[in-house]
Structures are given as structure tokens and as C-alpha cells.
């Protein structure tokens, strides 16, 4: 228990232990705690966590020790194998709970209780324990038993309904997001409970709903519906923000750029800069010449003129490359960003200048891979240096033999009996 351990004063959670029973649904929670210095022990079923089969893979060939998805969200963790569905597995887990500060799990609601390992049981063993359950819909309510997918959590959060073309189906971000956000939300919840525990000595049970953590992705549309009964709909490259469509996505010669089309009535100065730029390029709609841009007569700005501004800027963008366009936009004080791909990201100068990438050694593959580095810079308690995700059961000996004192001979028996 933390109080009896030598606290590591370099990190926030040094000396704390988390037992991480999650699959892909909650991996990011333990990942964050590990980054904060906790000893996160991933408890995998014998044979390994099913999330090890999620693509992409190192070298493109599926292998449980080569899932890049698994690598990404299990850095700095340890791994033991344990079958919780056996009495022996339960007894061992209970021993580990005595030494732990956190338990994180993402089983179907009711599963842990069925193994005799629900919160009340763990609380009885270790009243300081913070137990975090990360599930698609939470532990209560009519949907709690629903069969889940990341897509479904996104779909039911309102976010997807708003993303995509109006005449086509709603879409999600192609790198699934719901489980990652749920895991991060779980980490906040866990830290909140941790803070309380450290002040009062009391642990508690944390019930995280992945869908609810996604619900905030659609914040503007809900009051709009509640107040006016109006449904915000998806609108492709436009953003339907205040009942109006505003273009935010601009294709150019070799890609696209994001910026918000300025409204002439609200921001005539920004518009003037565009007009001047277009004039330089010889793309200018005749109707703009009639406007005195230094003192525009707002009454004369019809929706049609606003539309003409949009189509002219679209034409302007198409004559420029992404870097030319970005350069021009920034020079004119327009907030904009290129639509970056992973390739662009890995070449980004800002990230390099901040020394963001962290080389992680994968000795077993003879490789060193640049990972996204610390998620936040902290002067006193920086995120710990990244260490590769564990191999299946890599720390069985350390935890079972060295820590719990199970004789090696018994460890073999446990393996053969399918318990570890």
C-alpha cells in the first residue's frame, strides 16, 4: 500500500499500484496512470488480452506481440496472466488487491460480481481501493448489457449524426475514438477518487460510461434542440453552428486547409484582406468592387454577396498549394491549419522543436520506434519516460514469485492448470 511504500518523489503516482483488467475499452486509463508513474500491472487472461489482435501491426503481419494498437496504449505497463474465472485465480487476485491502490476493469457490467470480485468484495479486502469500471453505458440503466463496438458508442453520442454530408450517411473518425476518450475520462474519474482517498483514506467505486464521455462532443446541438426544438444536422464542409452554415473546409491544389469563412457583416476587415489577396491573383468577383471595404454599408451585404465571397475564396484556394495557402492565410492574420495526415504530423517542425517524439526501444524486435511523447509537460512531476508495452505475462515471475512469494514450482502448476 502506498503509505508503506517508498514514495517516488519524481512522479505523481510513484509507489502506487494499479491492477489493469481492461481490454481496448479502458486501456487509456491505465496508460495515463502509468505515465504519471504508477506501477500498472495489466492482468491478462492466459493467452493474452484480446486487444492484442487489433490492427495495425508491426510489419503488417498480425501477431499478439506486434499490435501497434496495443503498443500505443499499454506503454509503461507490466503484464501478468491470470484467469479470474478460477478459484485459484481469484485467490491470487485478492492477494494482489491487498497490495494495490487501483483496480481498473472494462468487463460487461456484473462480470466482476459474478467472479466474487465486485467492489464490495474488494472494498472488504482493501478499503482504500479505488475501483474503476469503464463500460459502454455504465453499470446501470436499460442499455447496460448492450453488446458494444466503438462505432456504436460514437453513433449513440450524437457526434456522428453531425459529421458527414447531409445527403449521405453519418460518419466517424477513421481511427476509433470512443474507447480512447472513455479511457481518458476513466483516468480523470480515477484521479478524482484518488485525491479523495488520499485526503480521507476512503476508496470508492468509479462507474464510467464511454458513451457519456463522448456526449460532450455534441455540446452546441443539444441546447439548440432543447430550446428551439431544432435539429442540427450534418453539413459536410460546413459547420452548422448557429442555425447557419459556415464553410470551414477548403480544398486547395494538393490537399485542403481549415479556416472559418469570415462573415462580412461581423468581420469586414478579414474579408477585405481576402479581397485584396484575390485581387493580386486576379480572382475577384465584380460585386465586391462596389463595396467600400473601409466603411461597408452592412445593409447592402446580401446573403448572395456572402455566397460570392465563399465561391471566390474557393477558387482562390484551388490555385494555391497547401503551403502557399497557409503562408498567405497566416500572413493575413487568419486562423487556419492545414489538414494534416500522419505523414505531415511526423514531419511537423513544432513537434520536433518541442522534442515531442520519444524513441521507445523494442529490443525483442531489434527496433526503436518514435512514439508520441508526454501528453503534458510538468516541471516537477513529468510523465515518466516511455517503456514499451509488455509481452504477454512478461512480469509473471516478478509479481508472482518475487512479490507474492509463490514458489516457482507452483507457478508451473498454475500455468499448466490454465490459471496463469
Amino acid at each position, binding site marked *: 500500500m502506498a503509505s508503506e511504500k517508498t514514495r517516488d518523489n519524481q512522479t*505523481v503516482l510513484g509507489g502506487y499500484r494499479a491492477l489493469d483488467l481492461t481490454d481496448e475499452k479502458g486501456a487509456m486509463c491505465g496508460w495515463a496512470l502509468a505515465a*504519471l508513474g504508477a506501477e500498472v500491472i495489466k492482468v491478462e487472461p492466459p493467452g493474452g488480452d484480446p486487444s492484442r489482435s*487489433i490492427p*495495425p501491426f*508491426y510489419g503488417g503481419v498480425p501477431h499478439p506481440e506486434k499490435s501497434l494498437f496495443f503498443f500505443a496504449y499499454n506503454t509503461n505497463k507490466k503484464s501478468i496472466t491470470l484467469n479470474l474465472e478460477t478459484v485459484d485465480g481469484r485467490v491470487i487476485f485478492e492477494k494482489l488487491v491487498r497490495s494495490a491502490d487501483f483496480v481498473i476493469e472494462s468487463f460487461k457490467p456484473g462480470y466482476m460480481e459474478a467472479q466474487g470480485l465486485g467492489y464490495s468484495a474488494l472494498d472488504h479486502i482493501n478499503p482504500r481501493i479505488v475501483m474503476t469500471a469503464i463500460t459502454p453505458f*455504465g453499470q*446501470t440503466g436499460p442499455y447496460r448489457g448492450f*453488446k458494444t*463496438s466503438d*462505432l*456504436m458508442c460514437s*453513433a*449513440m*453520442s*450524437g457526434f*456522428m*449524426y*453531425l*459529421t458527414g454530408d447531409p445527403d449521405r450517411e453519418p*460518419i466517424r473518425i*477513421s*481511427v476509433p*475514438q470512443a474507447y480512447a476518450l*472513455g479511457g481518458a*475520462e476513466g483516468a*480523470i474519474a480515477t484521479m*478524482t*477518487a484518488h*485525491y*479523495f482517498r488520499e*485526503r480521507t483514506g476512503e476508496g470508492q467505486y468509479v*462507474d464510467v460510461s*464511454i*458513451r*457519456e*464521455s463522448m456526449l460532450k*462532443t455534441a*455540446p*452546441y446541438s*443539444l441546447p*439548440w434542440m*432543447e*430550446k428551439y426544438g431544432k*435539429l442540427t444536422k450534418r453539413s*459536410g*464542409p460546413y459547420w452548422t453552428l448557429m442555425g447557419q452554415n459556415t464553410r470551414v*473546409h477548403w*480544398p486547395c491544389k494538393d490537399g*485542403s486547409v*481549415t479556416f472559418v469563412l469570415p462573415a462580412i457583416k461581423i468581420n469586414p476587415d478579414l474579408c477585405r484582406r481576402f479581397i485584396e489577396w484575390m485581387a493580386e491573383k486576379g480572382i475577384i468577383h465584380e460585386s465586391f468592387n462596389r463595396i467600400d471595404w473601409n466603411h461597408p454599408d452592412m445593409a447592402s451585404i446580401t446573403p448572395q454577396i456572402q455566397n460570392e465571397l465563399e465561391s471566390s475564396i474557393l477558387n482562390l484556394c484551388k490555385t494555391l498549394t497547401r503551403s502557399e495557402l497557409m503562408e498567405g492565410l497566416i500572413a493575413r492574420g487568419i486562423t487556419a*491549419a492545414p489538414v*494534416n*495526415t*500522419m505523414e505531415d504530423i*511526423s514531419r511537423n517542425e513544432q513537434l520536433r522543436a518541442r522534442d515531442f517524439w520519444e524513441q521507445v526501444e523494442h529490443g525483442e524486435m531489434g527496433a526503436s520506434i518514435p512514439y508520441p511523447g508526454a501528453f*503534458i*509537460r*510538468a516541471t*516537477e*512531476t513529468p510523465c515518466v519516460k516511455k517503456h514499451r508495452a509488455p509481452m504477454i505475462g512478461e512480469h509473471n515471475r516478478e509479481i508472482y514469485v518475487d512479490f507474492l512469494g509463490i514458489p516457482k514450482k507452483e507457478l508451473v502448476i498454475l500455468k499448466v492448470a490454465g490459471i496463469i
Partner: protein
Amino acid sequence: MCRQALEGVKIADFTWAAAGPLTMSYLAHGGATVVKIESGTRSGASRSFPPRGGEGGMISSMMFSNDNSDKLSISINMKNPRGVEVAKKLVLWADVVAENFRPGTMEKWGLGYAELKKINPSIIMFRSSARGQTGPDSKVAENGITLQSLTGFTSLTGYPDKNDPTPPWGAYTDLTAPALGAVMLIGALDYRAKTGKGQCLDLSQLEAGLQFLAPAILDYHVNHLCARRMGNASSYGVPHGVYRCSGNDRWCAIAIFDDREWKAFCRIMDKPEWLDDPRFATAIARKKNESELDHLINEWTVKHPVEEIMNLLQDNNISAGIVENSADILNDPQIKERQFFEKLEHPHLGSFFHHGVGFRLSKTPCNPRTPGPILGQHTEHVCRELLGLGKDEYENLVDAGAFT
């Protein structure tokens, strides 16, 4: 009133717009005293987002109320030296100073980390910015709409058959950054409580956002494969997407990952012949003929209401869910039963739903209790009760124009 987990935590909150306030929301809901420092001249765009109510400086929007519930508002004129003086008093009072201005702004006010430390040696400064406090681009202007493109989310959203991606609705990085920021902030608070040491936290919303794309980044670094948008397809599940149902703009998300689910699905659709159909019998074949399959599934789904399909598939242990619109969410039985929304009475906007956090703590509630404050609503309360200023002292400041 029940105990709350973060009771006693004091935050001087300079954040504005979305990414910053959403981070502080987690702490406010958890019980921290969050004093939002605003100014009448710069109250933040989100106060005026429709739907809104109130007038002029007192304007309030439902979105602002949502993002800032449980916080207090003090309105300080930072251009006035007496105003800055009040701000410094808040720094002395606080455990945390939070901000998400463009890097350099706080320094301009004399409130950089070095200065804060002089005032309050154990202060925690939480700084959230688009690209971090350092580096050549740190001061480039950014908003959530552009930042999600910069981070790569936009290039990963859209229909693969179209030339262009589609931006994810909203400002997606405004969700990813707060989640990770709050984790470290609470950790730093615990650390401070134990060691007395404060520190400065520098969150780059770009860098935090990239954590949510880590598998795709590793794929590029390792395999030189640049992830592309693929609509709703999954690299392994098939069928996997949203399908049109009867009614106007009604859709059902369906994901099938293995043989068992596929067999059950064919049975439900009354297509037993598909099990032996070389186009669909195996996952690889289904993937190859995915658009044809999607088309055929659509022919089935379009004849049924989405609720019926969801329930039918869920009864057979297949992942399916309504693509919920705002109305669906407000009426969702699960959300209702879990009381995710709290109806709070707002003086200008009336009674409406405020969203909570995605979790429940068994001993310490985290539900929203008070709506987002009206600008300067708590100026006097903060000065008198929290900072302990006398009545005269306070009025003196008012007269000096410290508040707006």
C-alpha cells in the same frame, strides 16, 4: 450536501472558450472551488453562442452555462493595475492558476509562472495552448476548428470515394485535451498536498490530441502506411457502418466482428443463403464485396425503424445502436436513468439540461449543481468571502475600476 472528492481545492481560472473551461469543469464538478476570472471586455465567445439570453455584458448562452456550471465568476479589468492586484490576491489564495491564452499573454499581465511563484511558491500553473508554450509555432493563432485539422483528425474523417475529407463536427481537440489535462492536474494537486511543491504544467492541445491517434502514428512510423479516411469502415469488422432506416434521416450503426455474429445477422435478415454465398461467406470476401453488402443491408434496414433494428440485433448479441441526434439524446432512456443531464434553473435562460461527467463516483457526487455564472455574478462574494477583503476595501476597488 454530500462530501465531494475535490472539496477544498481552489482554482483561479483564467481559461476561456472551450478547451480550458472544459478542463476546469472536471474539477468544478468534482467539488473544487473554481473562480472564473473574466473581463467585461473580453468575456469569451462562448458566452454569446446561441441559444442565448440576457443582454450586453450580461449575455449568457446555454452552451456557456453547460461548460461552466459549478463555477464562480469574477469580472476583473486586467488593464487596470488595481484589477491586476485583485488577480494577484487570487493567485495567493489559489492552489491552481489555469489559463489557455495564446502563449505570452499571462506574461504580459505580469502573471507568468515565475511571477506567480513569487506570489505563491507552491502554486500549480496549468497552461493549455494549441501547440504548447515553446517551439517556433507556439504563438500561431488556432481554434478548435483548425486544430483538429492540424492534429490529423480531419484527414481521417470522410468518405473514401470523395476527393476531400469532411471535418468532424465541432472542435474535436476540445474534448481530447481536457481529458488528459485534468488527469495530470489532479495528480499535481495530490502531489502538492503531500510535498508542498507546486509546478507548471504545459499542455499542448496538439500533442494531447495526438495521443488519440497513436496507433495510426505508429503505423506510419513503423510501416510507412499513412492512415486514410475510410468512412465508417473498420480495418477488421465487416459489415461495419451505419445503415439507413425508415423515417427521415434515421440511421443504425451496426458492427459485426466474427462468425457467430455474422451467422446470427444473416438469420435475422432472413438471408440464410448468404452463409454459402461466395461473396459473403467469409470475412475476407465480405470485405472485398463490402459496398455491395452494405447496399443489400441497407435494402433491409430501410424498411424498419431504427429502434426496432437496434433492439432486434441487441437481443441477438450483435452490436447495433441508433445514430442519435440531439432529440434522441435528450430522450434516451439510458441517459435518463443514469441522470447524465441535470436540469438547472438559469436566471436568464430558464430551466434546461446541463451535462455532467461521463462517470459516477460511489461516495462523492460529481453532478452539476449550479448553472454557469453570469458575468461577474460572484465578484463580491469572491472578494469578500474567499479573499477576505473588508467591505471598504472592496468598494474601494470597485471605485478604482478594478472590476468591469
